[in-house]
């Protein structure tokens, strides 16, 4: 464990994190209880509104649920075509016993859905008990004198097929006036956008919830061999879009304050579609691709406005790799148990200004791992050396190549920005490709840069 400690002591927060947090906090980082502004964990974003009548078991009033669609979910922003999460925002809070349901989140999880119910307790302070699936609240007493008052104990969902399932208390915010309850996906397989279910407190109070249809405005991911084509949402006149984590996201003025001064995409009022192609981008803070229109981006923290279109075509034409490029491996494969490191990295191949080197090779779990470094020169003169990792399987002449890329770089602000996107292609080196993540850097900063390369290493037998 001494080794663990020694290694962990070397780990430091990435540069710029504090700046990113402060910038987001200044930009209006959230509100208490109720509904939050754009927040990676809860993936809150309003894209559509629908009304629904909610029948409450104990009460008389009808409550409207607005269903919205959030493209992507969670921090990692797993990009899978068709997946999305949905959150139901209540126009009025739904009473459940002495508490209230603030909103409900339904998101894809392990082939089904997970349901999260967020309850609020108004202005009272809350202490989260660390016991099993229990949330306790102190009702206005000073924390050091607070007695744990059983709030809900166990919140139960009565599912459409009549079975019941407990919702696990998840809240980690002892001072926060809300409790999070999560229903595991295994219990949620019968829940979809059209189902009804009942939430029940241990005191027997119930609230009936019906999730109804929603309007999808989904980001569609298309892939074409080594290209990543991201077709964005259609832009409506007067809308403001935030370039957030690699996506253009509609900002709803009601819920999100004006933080990012992105001008209307088309001042003439035309609806536009933007396609972004993943090619090598040399610079930082702009989007490489084939744009139909110019997009101005506001960046943190320097607030530069970057003209994207001029650079994109140049980049797209110069640095797009041929899918069928076959690279013979210039070095001998090590034996299993042997790790070979080259004092001088061996040139693997070069393409224009970019050179790829093999730095080391070793076996791990029946995979031959190559450490490949490449050099790239940025337009602002910085040279960046990156090390993507490629997994290969050498077995009876078959192999896997990696498809992915890295676009780390140094900005003129000396901030490091990076993104990791890597996947294991099928054994032909093409086909189904999954991109784990596309991100712009820290937080909400603008500027996508990414590339995709499909290199097939020659079968060495």
């Amino acid at each position, binding site marked *: *464990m001494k080794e*663990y400690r020694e*290694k*962990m002591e*070397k*780990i*430091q*927060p*990435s540069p710029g*994190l*504090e700046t990113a*947090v*402060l910038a987001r*906090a*200044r930009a209006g*980082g959230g509100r*208490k209880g109720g509904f939050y502004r754009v*927040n*990676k964990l809860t993936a809150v974003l309003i894209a559509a509104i629908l009304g629904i009548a909610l029948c409450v078991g104990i009460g008389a009033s009808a409550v409207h649920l607005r269903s919205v669609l959030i493209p992507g979910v*969670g*921090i*990692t922003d797993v990009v*899978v075509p068709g997946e999305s999460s949905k959150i139901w925002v209540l126009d009025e809070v739904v009473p459940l016993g002495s508490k209230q349901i603030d909103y409900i989140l339904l*998101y894809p999880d*392990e082939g089904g859905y*997970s349901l999260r119910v967020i309850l609020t307790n108004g202005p009272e302070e809350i202490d*989260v008990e*660390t016991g*099993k699936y229990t949330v306790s609240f102190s009702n206005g007493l000073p924390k050091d004198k607070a007695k744990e008052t059983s709030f809900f104990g166990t919140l139960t969902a009565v599912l459409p097929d009549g079975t019941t399932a407990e919702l696990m208390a*998840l809240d*980690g*915010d*002892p*001072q*926060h006036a809300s409790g999070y309850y999560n229903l595991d996906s295994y219990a949620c397989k019968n829940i979809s956008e059209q189902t009804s279910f009942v939430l029940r407190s241990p005191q027997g109070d119930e609230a009936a919830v019906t999730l109804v249809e929603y309007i999808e405005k989904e980001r569609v991911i298309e892939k074409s061999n080594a290209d990543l084509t991201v077709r964005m949402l259609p832009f409506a006149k007067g809308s403001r879009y935030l370039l957030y984590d690699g996506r253009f996201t509609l900002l709803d003025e009601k819920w999100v304050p004006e933080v990012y001064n992105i001008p209307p995409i088309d001042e003439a009022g035309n609806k536009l579609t933007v396609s972004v192609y993943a090619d090598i981008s040399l610079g930082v803070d702009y989007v490489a691709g084939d744009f139909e229109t110019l997009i101005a981006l506001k960046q943190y923290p320097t607030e530069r406005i970057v003209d994207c279109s001029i650079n994109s075509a140049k980049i797209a034409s110069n640095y797009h790799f041929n899918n069928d490029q076959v690279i013979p491996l210039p070095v001998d494969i*090590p034996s299993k*148990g042997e*790790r*070979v*490191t*080259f*004092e001088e990295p061996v040139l693997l191949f070069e393409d224009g200004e970019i050179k790829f080197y093999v730095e080391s090779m*070793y076996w791990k779990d029946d995979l031959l791992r190559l450490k490949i470094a490449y050099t790239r020169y940025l337009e602002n003169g910085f040279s960046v*050396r*990156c*090390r*993507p*990792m490629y997994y290969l399987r050498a077995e009876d002449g078959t192999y896997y190549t990696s498809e992915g*890329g*890295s676009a*780390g770089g140094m900005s003129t602000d000396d901030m*490091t920005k*990076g993104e*990791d*996107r*890597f*996947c294991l292609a099928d054994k032909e080196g093409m086909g189904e490709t*999954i991109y*784990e993540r596309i991100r712009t850097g*820290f937080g909400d900063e603008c500027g996508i840069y990414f590339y995709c390369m499909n290199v097939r290493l020659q079968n060495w037998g």
Partner: protein
Amino acid sequence: MTEERLEAAMKQYGTTVYRLAFAQSGSRVDADDVYQEVFLRYWRTSPDFASDEHEKAWLLRVTTNCAHSLHRARVRRATVELNEAIPDHRDEEAQAAEELRDLLERLPEAYRAVIHLHYFEELSTAEIAQILGRREGTVRMQLTRARRMLHDQMTEETDEKEVVK
């Protein structure tokens, strides 16, 4: 909540939060996100604490929950993080991160926080149980099993022969 207070909290606990997030996720970029989420929650909720220990425990708790949510929301794929040694003085850190990642990915997600909080933050099993919302007996069991798994892992790697050409 003031910016000064937020900034002070990040300076005092930022590294602690980051390392725990890294221990749980095994990924620097995920740790970046968790870090931001934790301190933005701190900003939003503006909690009052009885003591520094209370504040730290709150942050650790929120960190584990955020990292856990990340783990739950992610669709699992065979992927690997791209390590970027930028600039050169981070080579050592990048290597440490990679080695830790290799180590941690052998552990189930639930064990990683336990190992980190015990061996790095030097918390007792009772304190860890409090932060993670588990029973103390569960924490002890997870610690024992994680130790055994890490020991097996480290023994295996020392059998590898290094060749420099």
